[in-house]
């Protein structure tokens, strides 16, 4: 399902599947698609989220069957087989995933059949074509593919291992920093963390996902099916947090939530929280008053919208005015949960909440409110910020005007980074 949208934020399922899989070390995606899909999907994901591109294979280095008129008319399976043969001959990877563009999807090439001929060579098919939905659906489809093909079917439980999921590689511009900061915190609790995408984690770590004691999902609504599969197949419970935790309040709740789910000793949990909070507040103490009071709007995917609204309101005492969830969400139940999460603030008055994926709707909505002095949104909100003379800070997809490596907008230490970026003496 999808709607006509002005300036959609993110590409298609194909883009999301590729962004996710290509973030796993030594994975090769093979596009069975028209000639532009490799470039389109990476230009529209990684290049729009802090400019990083997969170091191994991506954009114009991804193998691609480049289907032309002949394949569209006569079928592209022969071309796909040649492409896979060539890929196996020259590309050194731990797993190969054949992805489906619209072209192959519409003409109905039997990709599963073609791939089945490569038994034992770690070639797998993901047959969801681009037109099936947006990039974040692609993230979920990629996890489905990992569940189907890679995750170990006969796991041995490791009580110290957790899967940290719900952070979108090459889409959430701060994904690497988020994984690193949350991993740092979880390691202080004595845990080993599967992120699958950072610290050179690869197929071996994906395989062990079924050995984990817990899935930690940092997103308000994605990955429900994956959580269910992991529970049914391997008895792994999931604990869900409504976004990537940001700032002392949310991160301490995160630490307590994980501690509770894993029945970790309360002494350790509270010790870690005290240390980490003290670290953050030591800095805050040195900059009291540095961040001037602001009436703010947030424009972001659901998870970031929740985390950012709460952080600015609860931890920095800024005043929320309106929060716009820019990711397309269709279920009323999900929308209701997300709205409640955004509006449930400690002291501040709750902001209005809207679900608007359309760029023009977003601009118009912000302009309906007077007195907004800060917009925490994507690079696209730079424009409306100039129009209403508000400060702008880029927190959500797309971010195309700054290079981001491991800058964290998550956890305890990430709160300091966000605050640094918020400072503005103009």
């Amino acid at each position: 399902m999808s709607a006509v949208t002005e300036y959609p934020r993110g590409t298609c399922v194909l883009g999301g599947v590729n962004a996710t899989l290509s973030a796993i070390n030594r994975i090769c995606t093979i596009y069975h698609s028209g000639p532009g899909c490799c470039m389109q999907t990476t230009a529209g994901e990684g290049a729009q989220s802090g400019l990083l591109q997969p170091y191994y294979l991506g954009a114009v280095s991804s193998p691609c069957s480049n289907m032309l008129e002949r394949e569209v008319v006569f079928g592209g399976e022969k071309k796909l087989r040649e492409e896979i043969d060539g890929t196996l001959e020259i590309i050194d990877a731990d797993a190969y995933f054949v992805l489906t563009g619209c072209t192959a999807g519409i003409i109905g090439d039997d990709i599963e059949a073609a791939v089945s001929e490569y038994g034992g060579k770690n070639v797998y098919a993901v047959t969801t074509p681009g037109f099936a939905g947006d990039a974040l659906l692609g993230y979920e489809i990629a996890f489905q593919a990992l569940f189907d093909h890679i995750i170990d079917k006969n796991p041995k439980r490791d009580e110290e291992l957790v899967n940290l999921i719900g952070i979108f590689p090459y889409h959430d511009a701060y994904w690497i920093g988020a994984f690193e900061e949350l991993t740092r915190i979880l390691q202080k609790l004595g845990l080993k963390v599967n992120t699958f995408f950072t610290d050179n984690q690869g197929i071996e770590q994906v395989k062990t996902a079924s050995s984990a004691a817990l899935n930690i999902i940092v997103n308000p609504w994605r990955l429900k099916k994956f959580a269910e599969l992991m529970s049914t197949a391997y008895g792994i419970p999931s604990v869900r947090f409504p976004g990537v935790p940001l700032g002392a309040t949310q991160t301490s709740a995160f630490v307590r939530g994980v501690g509770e789910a894993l029945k970790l000793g309360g002494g350790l949990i509270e010790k870690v929280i005290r240390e980490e909070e003290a670290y953050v507040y030591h800095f805050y103490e040195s900059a009291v008053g540095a961040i001037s009071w602001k009436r703010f709007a947030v424009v972001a995917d659901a998870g970031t919208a929740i985390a950012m609204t709460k952080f600015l309101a609860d931890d920095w005492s800024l005043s929320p005015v309106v929060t716009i969830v820019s990711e397309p969400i269709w279920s009323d139940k999900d929308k209701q949960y997300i709205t409640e999460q955004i509006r449930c603030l400690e002291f501040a008055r709750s902001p209005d909440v809207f679900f608007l994926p359309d760029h023009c709707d977003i601009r118009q909505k912000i302009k309906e409110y007077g007195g907004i002095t800060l917009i925490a949104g994507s690079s696209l909100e730079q424009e409306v910020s100039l129009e209403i003379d508000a400060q702008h800070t880029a927190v959500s997809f797309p971010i195309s005007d700054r290079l981001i490596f491991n800058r964290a907008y998550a956890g305890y230490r990430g709160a300091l980074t966000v605050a640094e970026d918020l400072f503005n003496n103009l």
Partner: protein
Amino acid sequence: MAERYSGIREKRPYTYNDLGDKGDKLAADFEKRCIKNADRTFSQGLQCQQINSISAVLSLEESVFVVHSPQGCAGCVTMGADGYRVGQAHRGVRLIKSPRVIVTNLDQNDIIHGGEAKLREAVKLADERYNPKLIFIFTSCASGIIGDDVDAIAADLQPESSSILVPIHCDGFRSKICASGFDAAFIAIQKYLLPKQPPVKQKDLVNLFAPTSISYKDQLEIERMLGLLGVKVNYIPFYSSLEKIRQIPAAAASTSICKVFADEFMKTLEDDYGIPYAHTVMPIGVRNTDKWFLGIAELLGKGDSAREYIEKEHARVLPKLDAIKKRLRGKRVFICGGTGRSFAAAALIDDFGMELAVLETPTYDADAQIDIDYLNGIHKDYVVDIANMQPFEQVNLVNALKPDVFIGVPSWSARFGIPTTHVLDPKRATMGYDGILYLGEKIADQIENPGFNRKLAPYARLPYKKSWYDSDPFKFIKEVE
């Protein structure tokens, strides 16, 4: 043009995209017409023509861009939009805006039932929201295969719209050559926007066609040079407008600053409006700048004043090249780029006494042959790889031939530790005579200071098997019917 030229570049005679050999061998084979049609049985991602069509018109004023496709086909719009924002900043615009792009977002349901309803909705939205002068509609692989009749829908909607609806047929799968997308855009401009009655001729007006990668500084320099010939420039289509497009037929002559941009369109303008054109080269480097400037000047009957200017500039610039030559002479160069810039860079390195080791460029045709013949007169024993990127061939060649420097997109070659540089530069003028000095300094500085790449190389992790580096780089290029 619509009747005469399909807009699909590879359908023009003797056009090749999959080819690799020594420069002299290729030129001889091309001359004898004995190059076979071929295809790569393994390839990496290309750029589709839709990307070029959209980028060609994305900065036009008072326009809305409807992309009739699933959400992913707007991926490169975002890249073009970034360029548009930067272009506004360079032009001193304060309220920098995003281009108005509306994606119809075709989904499973539309694939089965057709996307007409969403296209109508998108065009209406464009009208209601922005009341623009122009609404461009771009087709996609998906809309093309399901058979949406975009022309008919646009014709049906036109009476209700105060904008001019301009469908551009740029389905990705119809061409392997992304520059076809430029042609698709110009075919549409000709069909929908050029006045049937040509406007009053302006003797001093010249159409200057330039692709999106031309920086504002380069635009200013080229306009300045043409100003020396006493002409006014109609700069099309970047940061341009419907009014300027309508002035195209009034011009006394046309020229382009890229070999594959508006070349076919300029032929059409000659046929339809009797406007002569100069199709030469990109004005980068001494030889190319001379050639480009003389090309347009001769057309205008101003050859003499152009030669006078060229002589003056040579006297000013050539002595300054000596110092750069000392730093660069004899260095072996690998060049990779789009058609215009790759050949421009190849001519440029001659100014510095460098040697060509490899030239990687997307298409070989009669136009390319002119440049290859010229290069064969200077360089011996260099390799031509006719490829649109294809980094697997590039790394194989870099590894085998060990050039001293790589000019082009550096993502892969940098990881071999060799110096990398580029003739693209958004901030400074690279074209014209001062551009030569700037690029010379840039190339020399980057070659002499290769620290970044050297230190990166030991940590680099390219994805290719060792055996690939021992293989024939062109082994996947196979003859086809």
